[in-house]
């Protein structure tokens, strides 16, 4: 069964902290994605990766970085968390090109105080 897991369901951090959100998929997918979800805005792509050590900016990369050292793991990093980064973060993966859908993790609700 397809599975994408995220390290935390809920996370509370202070302004200025460095925050790591981890995502692991067990499907040997090439592509992995990080989105943030805010009410009325849908899901917006932060970064994605199509291979190990490869990454591309999405629509809203400012304030974020990513790391993909292994195929199954894709990390989102907030170098210095700010209150406007309070949001729901969703990780997804997909098996390369060809119209395949993305499979999503359960999401991490991050609150920055």
């Amino acid at each position, binding site marked *: 069964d397809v599975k994408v897991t995220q390290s935390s369901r809920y996370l509370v951090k202070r302004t200025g902290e460095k925050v790591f959100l981890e995502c692991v998929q067990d499907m040997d997918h090439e592509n992995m*994605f990080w989105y943030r979800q805010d009410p009325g805005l849908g899901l917006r792509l932060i970064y994605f990766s*199509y291979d190990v050590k490869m990454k591309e900016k999405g629509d809203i990369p400012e304030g974020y970085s990513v790391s993909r050292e292994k195929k199954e793991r894709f990390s989102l990093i907030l170098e210095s968390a700010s209150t406007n980064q309070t949001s729901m973060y969703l990780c997804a993966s997909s098996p390369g*090109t060809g119209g395949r859908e993305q499979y999503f993790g359960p999401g991490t609700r991050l609150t920055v105080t």
Partner: protein
Amino acid sequence: AQTVTQSQPEMSVQEAETVTLSCTYDTSESDYYLFWYKQPPSRQMILVIRQEAYKQQNATENRFSVNFQKAAKSFSLKISDSQLGDAAMYFCAPRINDYKLSFGAGTTVTVRA
């Protein structure tokens, strides 16, 4: 980012009745894929249905069907015989290029018993 418009923030439907969710998008491509995802209160994004743009036949998945109008760039979702478990937020998500989905703002569906 591609523009995806879901013009109905909320829809309410009586159990066993039918509801249709609208979606329009913008693209100059001729070959692409479109998806509808469901996000229940558990937050887990679940694929509802997929449509290939090159196929003229509308996709159907049990009680879920789409009305795909390529020239109009319209991709609506019809839920027939609505059930309480259909209550969720629904996202339209075209996949225009190889990797990325673009999401609409979502439509919250409430099912009345």
